């Protein structure tokens, strides 16, 4: 009798191979290494086996096989997450969803689409070109990240200021629950029937099940768009202008701030005409119908003048508008010329506290003898301080982590929260008790337990339970096309 190979002798592998096929179940060192990391600085454990399902039934079979053989499972999209949410811990079954990348249905009249989780965010809006509709969540990683990943992280992006983060754009979702059962949560139209389990699922970071089909809301393209560039001689003046715009009753489509170091780094690459001697610039995008947009331009020019802006430039044509945004969205390609390594944080503060907290961040970074670049979603108070350093310097890691922790503490103390769009993953779970009491965390655990009573779905993430995994031993080199 022929001996069974090592691969097929392993009962978990046998089950997975019979559910998928041998080519789509990988255990080689290359695959296991590749799928052990995401775009974060977190290093966890190793992947047990990497699966590439192509249907809901195959995803369910992967989950059932993992469960039957006492293994955890972790879902993964493009791996662009910044909090270690898809980093494996205890040799889990890694369920990679990038082969489920079909746009299943677009219903223009009802303004919705059904997509598979592996559809790349920007590909959906490209596919919708000419329909007058688009998918509103626009994380800076949108040319790489998947909609399944957006659902898992409840992702944001610059234009979420007006349009809301991913949860506001997910109408329904087909989910493989952690016991393998398939359910559809939410409705194509209308409020949820019973509990809003769809709303509970979105942002679950892969701990509540795996999304296999997603019904997204499509947003009408605005008839008029204006992009403004405001420049200031102090970060405080820029921050006060942000508060003044919101307090005046305007909600711009986007309201972004970049400090001088970012502007200096980016301008040579994009030639957007950013003033490199400004302490801070604001990018304000207004959209809607022409009279409303024109009126808001007038109001913002006046507010900017009152708060000391040196100039307000309104992009005259589409090319200029694109260049202004290109500088913002690709800011981080330019960073490597300053330092080879980076650590990106993500907190939210009340927007009226922007000036004082950003100033405090500069002080924290100076105390630790580091460099910081600030480019962030100012309109909703979502900070993205990017700490730059050279990991070859002895002792620098400790200083980077100390600065990162202090930024989180200062944000929470200012009445803020741990994360605005990157999620908790492994990176921030140790900080959860800064924001939440034990009773708050227990309530969150109750939600999680209802979805996953046995705790096999991406465990050791989000909540600061006893299980630990993941550590920041070596912060990452800047990858190509890094983003915030």
């Amino acid at each position, binding site marked *: 009798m022929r001996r069974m190979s090592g691969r097929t002798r392993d009962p978990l592998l046998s089950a997975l191979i019979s559910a998928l096929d041998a080519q789509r179940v990988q255990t080689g060192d290359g695959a296991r290494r590749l799928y052990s990391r995401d775009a974060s600085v977190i290093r966890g454990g190793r992947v047990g086996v990497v699966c590439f399902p192509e249907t809901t039934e195959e995803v369910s079979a992967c989950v059932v096989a993992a469960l039957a053989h006492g293994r955890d499972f972790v879902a993964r999209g493009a791996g662009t997450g910044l909090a270690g949410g898809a980093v494996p811990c205890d040799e889990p079954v890694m369920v990679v969803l990038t082969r489920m990348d079909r746009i299943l249905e677009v219903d223009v*009249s009802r303004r919705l689409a059904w997509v598979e989780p592996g559809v790349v965010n920007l590909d959906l809006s490209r596919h919708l070109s000419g329909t007058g509709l688009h998918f509103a969540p626009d994380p800076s990683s949108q040319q790489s990240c998947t909609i399944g990943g957006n659902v898992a992280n409840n992702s944001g992006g610059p234009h979420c200021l007006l349009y809301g983060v991913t949860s506001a754009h997910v109408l329904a979702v087909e989910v493989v629950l952690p016991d393998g059962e*398939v359910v559809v*949560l939410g409705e194509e139209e209308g*409020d949820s029937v*019973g509990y809003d389990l769809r709303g509970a699922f979105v942002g679950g970071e892969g701990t509540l099940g795996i999304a296999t089909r997603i019904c997204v809301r499509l947003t*009408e393209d605005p008839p008029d768009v204006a992009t403004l560039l405001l420049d200031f001689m102090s970060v405080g003046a820029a921050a006060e202008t942000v508060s003044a715009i919101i307090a005046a009753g305007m909600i711009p489509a986007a309201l972004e701030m970049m400090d001088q170091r970012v502007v200096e780094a980016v301008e040579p690459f994009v030639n957007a005409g950013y003033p490199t001697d400004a302490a801070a610039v604001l990018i304000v995008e207004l959209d809607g119908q022409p009279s409303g947009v024109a009126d808001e331009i007038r109001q913002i020019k006046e507010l900017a003048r009152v708060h000391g802006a040196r100039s307000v430039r309104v992009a005259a044509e589409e090319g200029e508008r694109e260049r202004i945004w290109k500088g913002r969205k690709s800011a981080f390609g330019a960073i490597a010329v300053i330092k080879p390594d980076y650590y990106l944080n993500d907190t939210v503060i009340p927007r009226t506290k922007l000036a004082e907290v950003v100033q405090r961040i500069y002080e924290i970074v100076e105390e630790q003898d580091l460099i910081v670049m600030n480019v962030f979603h100012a309109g909703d108070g979502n900070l993205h301080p990017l700490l730059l350093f050279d990991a070859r310097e002895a002792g620098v890691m400790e200083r980077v982590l100390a600065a990162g922790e202090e930024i989180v503490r200062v944000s929470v103390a200012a009445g803020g*929260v*741990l994360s605005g769009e990157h999620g908790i993953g492994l990176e921030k779970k140790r900080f959860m008790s800064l924001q939440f009491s034990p009773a708050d965390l227990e309530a969150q655990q109750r939600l999680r337990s209802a979805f996953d009573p046995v705790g096999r779905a991406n465990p050791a993430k989000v909540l600061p339970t006893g299980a630990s995994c993941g550590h920041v031993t070596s912060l990452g080199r800047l990858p190509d096309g890094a983003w915030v």
Partner: protein
Amino acid sequence: MSAGDACMVAFQSDVGDSGAVCVRGGGTRWEVGGGPDGAREVSAPVGIVALDPAEMTVMVGAGTALSDLAGELVIHGLEVGMKGPSGATVGGVLMVGRSAMRRRRVGTIADVLLQADCVGADGVAFTAGGPTVKNVTGYDLCRLLVGSLGTLALVGRVILRTRPVPARSLWLVGEAEPERVLDATYRPSCVLWDGVRTSVLLEGHGEDVDETAGRLALLGLTATEPPVLPPGRGRWTGRLPSGGVLEVGSGVVHQADDGGPPTVPDGVRRLAGRMRASFDPSGRLNPGRDPYRVAA
């Protein structure tokens, strides 16, 4: 009773840790999902705790009348994306979880709730969500609470997202297909269809509203008073019942009587059952109510 911390402590004490209990708000939709089976009634704190127009958020006791909150907000040019019957409370409207008719503009009711201070079935106070307008920290308990009819926790105080009140509002009506009206408008706040006539609510900058109204006049739409809708609700099934009015895109039909509750797949029911048992193992919170026994 104001809604400060001392009142939250009193609310927690009122809820206690044993015996069937429910919160009575304005009682305007008391029978939704079934009555609470003789549970002891408590009241949630009342009053606006903090309103910061520059932050566009408001902290308010769940027992506050929605009309009182709206009256205060409008002084600052603000509103919340919630609507309820006369006398309804903030907490009651959130727990029933019906989005406002203007949801196309103001978002769904789930988008309004940023933070909720609650008392759980074990009598322990906890906070869901966070105070900022953007937040993905931990699980989204707030969305789970909206529409839960008080079966997962009892909400005492909330932080809500506010929005600027539109400069101009105008209802129009005429015999046109709703699809044609939608094609001729940009993000109207509400579109209603009674089978013959389409009503549309335009909101925004005055000149934009006038310009759109001019375009709709070509389709035969003329200015009108806000519509009075039938009192019942049902879910849109592709056919309009006699006398019914469809809220286009919302799945809701306003009709004479409430429709029957929609069919819920077994898997979803099981998950919902686990959710309720996880938060309230002894079944003491609003014991007779079932969020799945609601028409729409």
